[in-house]
C-alpha cells in the first residue's frame, strides 16, 4: 500500500507541475490585461506604470520563476483586478463550490443508483425504459440549456424556487440539478450495466436459490458489486463538477470558484486565473488519490497491480 501511495504521489506532482506550466503560458497568449484594467483615457505613461507595478514588464521566464517560487511557498499571488491575495479570494469562494458540487453529485447518485439497479435487473420494465430516456437526456442536454429551462419553469412560472443566488437551502436545488444532470446520465448507465451483468452472475443465482427475495438480492448482493466502479467514476465526476461549474455558477449567480474564474478570464486577470486553475488541479488530484486509496481498500486486487 505504501509503495502504491508513493507512486501515486509522484505522478500527482508531475501532473501539477504540468498544469502550472500550461496555465501560465496559455493565459498569456490571450493578450494584454492593461487595456481592460485601466480606463480608455489612460496615457501611455500610466499604462507603463501599471505594467511595472504588476510585474508584467519583466521577461516571461522571470515571471514564471516568480510564480513557481510563490506556488512552492504557498503564495498564489495577488489579483490584478481586486488587489487582494488570490488564495484569500479562492478560500472565500471554495465553500460555495464544494457545496454545489456535493449537492450535484448527491442528486446524480440519488437518481442514478436506484433507477440503474431496477433498470439493470428488469430491462424491459417501465423503469427500464424510463432509465433509457433519463440517461440519454442526461448526456445530451447541455447543462446551460437545462439551467435556463429550470429557471423559467420553477422560478418564473411556478415561483417555487429562487432563480439565482445562494441565500437559503432552496437556492441550492436548481443549480445542483442543472450541474448534476450530465453526470447522472453517466452514473445511471454504469449502474444499469453493472446490475445487468450481475443478474447472470453465479453468486446471484446462488442467492436466489437460497430463497432470498428480489429486493434483498438487489440490495445485499448486486449493490455492493456495483459500488466499486461507481466509486471511481463518482470520484472523477466530483472533480469534473468542481472545474466544470463555470457555466452553471455564472447562470445562477452562484458565488463560487466557477463564477470567479469566469470573471478572471474575462478581465485577463492572469494571476487569478492561474491560481484558480492550479487550485482546482490540486484539488482534483487530491480527490483522485483519495478515490484510488478507497478503491484499494475496497478491492485488494488494485493494490497488487
Amino acid at each position, binding site marked *: 500500500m505504501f509503495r502504491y501511495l508513493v507512486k501515486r504521489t509522484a505522478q500527482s506532482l508531475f501532473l501539477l507541475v504540468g498544469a502550472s506550466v500550461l496555465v501560465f503560458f496559455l493565459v498569456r497568449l490571450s493578450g494584454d490585461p492593461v*487595456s481592460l484594467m485601466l480606463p480608455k*483615457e489612460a496615457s501611455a505613461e500610466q499604462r507603463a506604470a501599471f505594467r511595472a507595478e504588476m510585474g508584467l514588464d519583466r521577461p516571461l521566464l522571470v515571471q514564471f520563476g516568480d510564480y513557481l517560487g510563490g506556488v512552492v511557498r504557498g503564495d498564489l499571488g495577488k489579483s490584478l483586478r481586486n488587489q*487582494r491575495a488570490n488564495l484569500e479570494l479562492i478560500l472565500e469562494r471554495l465553500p460555495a463550490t464544494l457545496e454545489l458540487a456535493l449537492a450535484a453529485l448527491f442528486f446524480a447518485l440519488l437518481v442514478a443508483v436506484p433507477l440503474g439497479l431496477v433498470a439493470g435487473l428488469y430491462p424491459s420494465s417501465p423503469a427500464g425504459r424510463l432509465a433509457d430516456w433519463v440517461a440519454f437526456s442526461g448526456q445530451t442536454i447541455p447543462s446551460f440549456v437545462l439551467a435556463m429551462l429550470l*429557471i423559467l419553469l420553477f422560478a418564473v412560472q411556478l415561483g417555487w424556487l*429562487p432563480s439565482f443566488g445562494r441565500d437559503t437551502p432552496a437556492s441550492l436545488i436548481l443549480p445542483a440539478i442543472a450541474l448534476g444532470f450530465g453526470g447522472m446520465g453517466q452514473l445511471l448507465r454504469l449502474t444499469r450495466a453493472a446490475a445487468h451483468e450481475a443478474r447472470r452472475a453465479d453468486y446471484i443465482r446462488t442467492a436466489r436459490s437460497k430463497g432470498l427475495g428480489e429486493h434483498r438480492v438487489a440490495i445485499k448482493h448486486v449493490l455492493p458489486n456495483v459500488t466499486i466502479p461507481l466509486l471511481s467514476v463518482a470520484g472523477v465526476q466530483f472533480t469534473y463538477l468542481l472545474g466544470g461549474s463555470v457555466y452553471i455558477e455564472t447562470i445562477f*449567480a452562484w458565488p463560487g470558484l466557477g463564477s470567479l474564474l469566469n*470573471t478572471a478570464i474575462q478581465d485577463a486577470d492572469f494571476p487569478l486565473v492561474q491560481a484558480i486553475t492550479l487550485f482546482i488541479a490540486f484539488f482534483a488530484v487530491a480527490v483522485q488519490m483519495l478515490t484510488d486509496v478507497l478503491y484499494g481498500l475496497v478491492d485488494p486486487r488494485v493494490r497488487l497491480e
Partner: protein
Amino acid sequence: MTKRWIAVLVAALASLPAVAQAPAGQLTVALANDPKSLFMPRAADRTAGNVASQLYNSLVWVNDAGEIVPELATRWTISPDGKEYTFTLRTGVKFHNGENFDAQSVLATWETGKDKSNDYAESYSVVKEVRVINPTTVTLVLDKPNALFLNTLANFWAVVPPSYIRQVGLDGFAARPVGTGPFRFVSRSADRIVLEANPNYWEPGLPKLQRIVFRVIPDATTRVAAVRTGEIDIANRLTSELTRQLQNSSRVRVISYPNDRVFYLAFKNVGNGKGTPLENVLVRRALNLAINRPAIVRSIFNNEARLVSGFVLPGNLGFDPSIQPYPYDPEQARRLLAQAGFEKGFSISMGCPSDYYVNINEVCLAIQRDLARVGVEVSLEFKTSNTYWSQERYGAVGPMYVDSWSSTVGEALPRLLGALTPGAFYNTWEDETLSRLIAQAAITTDRNARASLYRQIQRRMFDDPPFVYLYQPVIFEAVNVRVQNYRPRAAEEYYLKNVSVR
C-alpha cells in the same frame, strides 16, 4: 362633531411629512459584474462607480438636468485666469465614522487620489496644489484652465476621511469604505454588497431607502428572470430581445434611453493608415455614403439605436441639429471613389472587437458587405478585446477599425480628446484644424464659448470625416413597478438617494 374630525385630519396631515422623511424599505439592484473597488479612484468600471457613488459626496454634484450644483461646497469662485478654484465648504457634515468633514478632508482626498496606482490618478493630478486657507475654505490650483474641471470633481473626487485612511490604509479603506454620502457601507461578500441609510445625512429628507442590496448576477437572462420573480428590483445591461418577454408583465416596467456613446468606423492616417486611400477626403466621404446605416439600425437593432451625425450627440453641449447624418447613397459613393481615382475600388483590412459589444460582429459583417458593393474589398480582422486594445493607436489592427467611445459629462470632450488629440493613447487620426479646436474647447471654461467650438468641431468632422459615425446605442433596463424616482443617466450611471419603494 365636524370640528373634531377636522382637528383629527389636520393632525394626521401634520404628521405626514415626518412619516415620509424616515428612510424605509429595501431596494435590490442587480450588478452585471463584481465591482472592481469601492474606493472611487480605483473604481474604473461602471458597476463599481455606481455602487461607490452612493457612499460619497464630492464638492459639487451634477444634477439630473446636467447642471453643476453645490454638494460639500456651498459656493465657489474661479480666478480670472481659470486656474484657481476657491471653495467654501459646508459645515456640520460628518463622515459615516463620525469624523468631521473640513478642508483637510479635501487635501486628503487629493493626496490619496493622485497615487500612481489608482486607475483615475489623472483626474486628481490635474490639480497641482491644494491650499487649505482655513477649515472651511480650500483652493485647488490647476496647471492650466480646464473646461470640465467641475465635472471631474463631481465624477471622481469622492471625499474621504483623512484619519480613517491613515488608520486602515488604502486596502483597508477599499474593504470598508467611509464617506459622507446618503448611504453607508454595511458589508460586502462574494455575491452582494449591502448599504444602509446614513442616519446623519446632511440633505434633509434624504435618503428615502433604508437599505440597498446589490446582487452580482453576471448572466443577463438570469437578471431578467430575477426581476420577473420580484427577487430583484432593478436589472440593467439588457438587450431589447430580452426585454421583449417583459412587455406584458404587470410587475416590471421596461425603461430605455439612448446611451451617451457613439459607435464608429475609424480611419487611420498614422501607422499602417499612412499611404492608404483613406488619406483622401473623397474616399472617406464615399465610405460614409456607402454604408447602409439605416439598414443596420433597422435589421440588426430592430430600430432600437439612433443614427448620428458625429461625435457631438443630441443632448450634448453644442449639438447642431442642422447637421444631418450622411444618407445611404451607393451611387454617389461610387462617383466620389471614381473622382478620387479609385473607380475599380481598393482592398483594405478592418478590425472588429469580436463580440465585445452587442451585435458588433453582425455590424462588422454588414459594413464589409456594403463596402463590397462599391468595390471596396474589406478583409475583416476579428480580435478579442484585450488584444484589440492592447497597443497604442490600435496597433493590433488594420487601417480601419470599429470602436465606440462614451462620455459621462454630457459633453463630447472626453471622446474628442481621446480619439482625436495627437499623442493620446488611442488617437489614430491627425487633423491640425480639428485638434486645435479641441484643444481650445478643453481650456474654455465659458459654456457658451465652448458650445460654439463644439459646433465648429462637428462641422469639421462632417465635412472632412475622420470616421464613419455608425449609431448611438439604446440601453434597456427592467424595473419593478414599486420603485419610484429611479432615473438612470445616459452614461448608465445612477444615484439612489431620491429613490423610494412602495
